[in-house]
Structure formats: C-alpha cells, structure tokens
C-alpha cells in the first residue's frame, strides 16, 4: 500500500508535467512568431528574390499552424531546426557542442554549494547565537546580497588579476584549474541561500518536542542530530532544489560570459544579442525542460521521503 501510494504520487507528477512542457514550447514559439519584424529585417535590404528564398528555406512562408506542426515534429526527433545566424549548423548541433561543458560546470557548482552550505548551515544552527553563528549568518546574508555578476568579476580581479594564482580566461589556459573560478562563482550565491535555509530549518527542528524527547531518552548529541534531526531538517532544502537549479542555470549565463567559457550560457547570450531566433528558442525550451524535469525528480523524492505526504 505504501509502495502504490508513492508510485501513484510519482505518476501523477509526471502526468502533470507534460502540459507544462507543452505550454512552455507553445508560448515560446508563439512569442517568436508574434514578434514584430523578422530576424533579417535589420540587415540591409535583401533583393526580393533572395528574401523569398530565405523565407522558403526557413519555412517562413508557411502558415502558423504549419510552422508549429513542423517545429513540434522536429522537436520529437531532437531536431530544433537550422540556426538563423550560423547557417552551416543546426541548432541541435550548436547546443550539443556546448551542453556538456555547461553540465559539468553546473553539476560541480551544485555539489560544492550543497557541501559548503550544509556544513555551514548545520554548524551555525548547532552553535546558535555564538560568535561563529553570527559570522556565518552575516556572511550568508551578505552573500545573497551580492549578485553573481558582481561576485564573478571580483573573483577574477582578486585571484587572477591581482594575485595571479589562477587563469582569468578560459581560452588562455588549459587544464582543470580554469574550471575553479567559474565553479566557485556559480556556487557562492547558492552557498549563501543553502546556509540560511539549512540553519533556519535545523534550528526549528532542534527546538521541536521530539528532540526534547530524544534528549530525555538519553541519546547523545551526535545520534540526535544524525538519526532524529537531519532528515526533517533537510526536507525544506529539497524543495529549494528547484529554485537552486534555476539559479545555477541563470548564473551560468553570466559566469560563462565573464570567464569566456564556451558553454550553453554564452551561446544563449550571443544568440540573444544576434537575434538568432531558432537558437534562443531551442535553448529556452531545453532550459525549461531541464528545470521541469529536475523539479519533477525533487517532487517525487519528496513524496518518498516525507511520510506525511506518502500516506494519509
């Protein structure tokens, strides 16, 4: 019964994610179509015949439903159409080239943020109202107040320009050291959020009646934290994972720009500034799918971990 309950919960979440994804795709597509003027308008005027050829090549001469149907059927095959700016490449190829690097950066940053944030948050909660706690909370609140596009250049300024310890740019160097600063810049704001969240929820749990019971039962502090407090304290963090993932994706756009990392974020900004409609559209859909899928995983995990949701 417990298993079917969780399974049904998971199934329901998966089913409800599909319309969301469809909505995203249609919205993004329609927005592109609704935009005044086409991607080639800014260029000097093309000869009428060339313009017609271009329009035909990109299927701009078809009706809206036809275009949408064509786009959707391509999407199902993993084909996001040709790029408007890099005619020799398809959008899928461009994305495929940039994605692995961004994934690597994002995953590393997320792991680092969790590691540091959890450690800082739990320690602060356990030594609540001491000097160490005040320093950690102060740092965390400062951390969420410094935007990532300020942190990233500051890191460059200090560690690369002034101290010269680490490479400032991606292309000028090789090896794994060049990953360090971008990962750090991406992780730091999330460290601050996770620290605050972990501390608050850990304090709340440690003040609850059942922790007092555990103390009355003679359990030692390490056992209480590990066996009684950790799981309930971590649950609110799980629901923060969705926003954290979105935050890391957003941050990667800035960080890749500043460090010159040839990843998806940079591709996205370049596409945006060049008005490369299909490329931007493709990346937005990919990001949305990623966020929706990861939120889904988090939701399902939550259902499995919280007995209060699982069985009622």
């Amino acid at each position, binding site marked *: 019964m417990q298993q079917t309950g969780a399974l049904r919960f998971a199934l329901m979440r998966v089913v409800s994610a599909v319309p969301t994804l469809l909505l995203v795709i249609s919205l993004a597509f329609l927005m592109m179509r609704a935009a005044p003027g086409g991607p080639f308008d800014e260029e000097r005027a093309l000869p009428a015949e060339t313009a017609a050829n271009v329009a035909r090549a990109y299927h701009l001469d078809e009706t809206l439903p036809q275009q949408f149907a064509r786009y959707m059927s391509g999407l199902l095959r993993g084909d996001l159409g040709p790029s408007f700016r890099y005619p020799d490449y398809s959008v899928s190829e461009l994305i495929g080239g940039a994605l692995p690097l961004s994934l690597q950066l994002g995953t590393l940053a997320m792991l680092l943020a969790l590691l540091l944030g959890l450690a800082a948050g739990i320690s602060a909660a356990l030594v609540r109202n001491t000097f160490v706690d005040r320093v950690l909370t102060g740092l965390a609140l400062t951390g969420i107040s410094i935007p990532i596009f300020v942190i990233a*250049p500051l890191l460059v*300024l200090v560690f690369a320009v002034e101290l010269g310890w680490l490479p400032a740019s991606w292309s000028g160097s090789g090896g794994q050291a060049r990953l360090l600063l971008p990962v750090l810049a991406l992780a730091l704001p999330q460290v601050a959020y996770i620290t605050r969240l972990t501390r608050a929820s850990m304090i709340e749990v440690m003040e609850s009646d059942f922790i007092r019971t555990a103390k009355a039962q003679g359990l030692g502090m390490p056992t209480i934290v590990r066996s009684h407090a950790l799981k309930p304290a971590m649950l609110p963090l799980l629901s923060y994972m969705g926003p954290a993932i979105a935050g890391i994706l957003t941050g990667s756009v800035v960080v890749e720009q500043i460090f010159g990392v040839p990843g998806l974020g940079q591709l996205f900004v370049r596409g945006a500034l060049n008005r490369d409609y299909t490329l931007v559209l493709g990346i937005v859909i990919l990001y949305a799918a990623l966020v929706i899928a990861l939120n889904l995983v988090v939701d399902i995990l939550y259902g499995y971990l919280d007995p209060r949701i699982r069985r009622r």
Partner: protein
Amino acid sequence: MSIRAALGQVAARLVRSRLVVATAGILLAIAALAVVGPLLSPHSYLEADFDRRLLAPTLADLHLFGTDDLGRDLFVRCLLGVQVTLVVAIVASVVSLVIGVVYGAIAGYAGGRVDSAMMRLVDTLYALPFIFFVILLMVYFERNFLLIFVAIGAINWLDMARIVRGQTMSLKEREFVEAARLTGVSPGRILFRHITPNLMGVVVVYVTLTVPQAMLVESFLSFLGLGIQEPQTSLGSLVNNGVRQMEQAPWVLLIPASLLALILASFNFLGDGLRDVLDPRSRER
C-alpha cells in the same frame, strides 16, 4: 481607532528593532543622495570628455568617483544608475504586489474549484525558468522600460499570490471570521475588517523582499545588455561596463558594484528585521 492603535504598536516595535532602523536609514540616505547628488554636481551623465578617461576618484574637478572609459563622470552616472534601478524595482514590485494580492486574495477567499484552477496556473508558471522567457521577450521585441516592468512584475507576482492566498485561506478558516459570519457581518466587512488587517504584516514583509529580487532581475538584464540602454544607465549596466575596464581601472567596477550590493543587503536585512517584528510565525521560533 483600533487600526491606528495597531499601527502605533507596530511602529513602536519597529523603532525598537535597531536592524530595521539602521537599514531603513541607509536606504533613505542613498535614495536622497541619488535625487540630490546629480543636481549638486557640475557634471551631467551625458557629458563625455575624452581627455579625462578612466580618471581615478579625485576631488579635482569634483570627479568624486572618477570617470569611465568615455570620460563621463562616474559619480553622476552611479547616482543615475541608483535612481533607475530603484525606480524600476519599486514600480515593478508595486505591479507584482497589486497583481499578486488581488489574485491571491480572490483565489484564497473564493476557495474550491476557482482556487484550484487559479493555483494550478500559478504552479505551472512557477515551474518555468522565467528569466529566460524575459530574455526571449527582450530579443523578440524592442527593448523598452515598460517591457522591463512587465517582465519583472510577471516573475515576482507569483510569490506574492501564493503567500497572500495561503494567508487568506487560513484567515478565512479562523474562528474569529466564523464568529463574525455567525453574527451576520457582511462578506465585504469581513474582508475589510477581519482579513485585510491581519494580512498587512505579511504583505509588507514580502514587499521588502520583492524589491531586491526585482533589482536583481533588472540589473541582470542590464548587465547582459538586454535591459536599460545607453546613454541611460542602471547599476547593472555600470557593472557590466566596469568589468571591461577592471584591469586598468578597478574602481569603475568596484564603485557601482558596492553600491548595488549595499542596497541589496540593506533591503534583505530590512526584510529580515521586519519579518521578525511583523510575522508572528517567525517570532515563535
């Protein structure tokens, strides 16, 4: 009479909170400087002087913050940036406040099917990486102020709607509302006398937290070159410009960056302090 008394009590508690007073003071001082400063300076934000590029901060000729790569006075440009960033953030927050409160209060008070349909939409929108949609909008359409307001408001109203809806729902179920219904108090009076006053605290707190979020979105867009356009400026664009000069002239980055961080931190600390004072749930902890 009672509302004024309640406000008086809250005000007294606020004044006692040093954090709230200090951060509110800093924000007011910065806002005042942003309005008055440019009037006092001999320079204008447009005036370029190619002989005086990337000057370090100096009292000479009153370039208090130095100059940028076009020789424009950084003091005046920074204050203009503060003005623009604050105005955009506050207006956008008001937009999201109005939409969020109305939407949330209706959903919460109506309840039932209306509520679940309205919240289904919010949940769906919530799952979207909105910032990318905003960028998409900025790519497709002409970049203008109005669009920035709409875009930021569109992101932030979701939070407000959820919070107000939750509060309204729980207030509506509270026994004192039932007691009022039993004595024949009209729904309008219940909403106005019983629910709204108890909603205020939470709304005020979340507005203070919404403003820095809106600032972040605006400066993020401006940083990418998709927000406020030259020669107008905002703190985000100034930081972007500073990044390009940081190896020769770090102050061009550091000054607007610190201003931005100071304002954001003040709002965050203010919001934290306000929540301690106004939100009974967090006080219980």
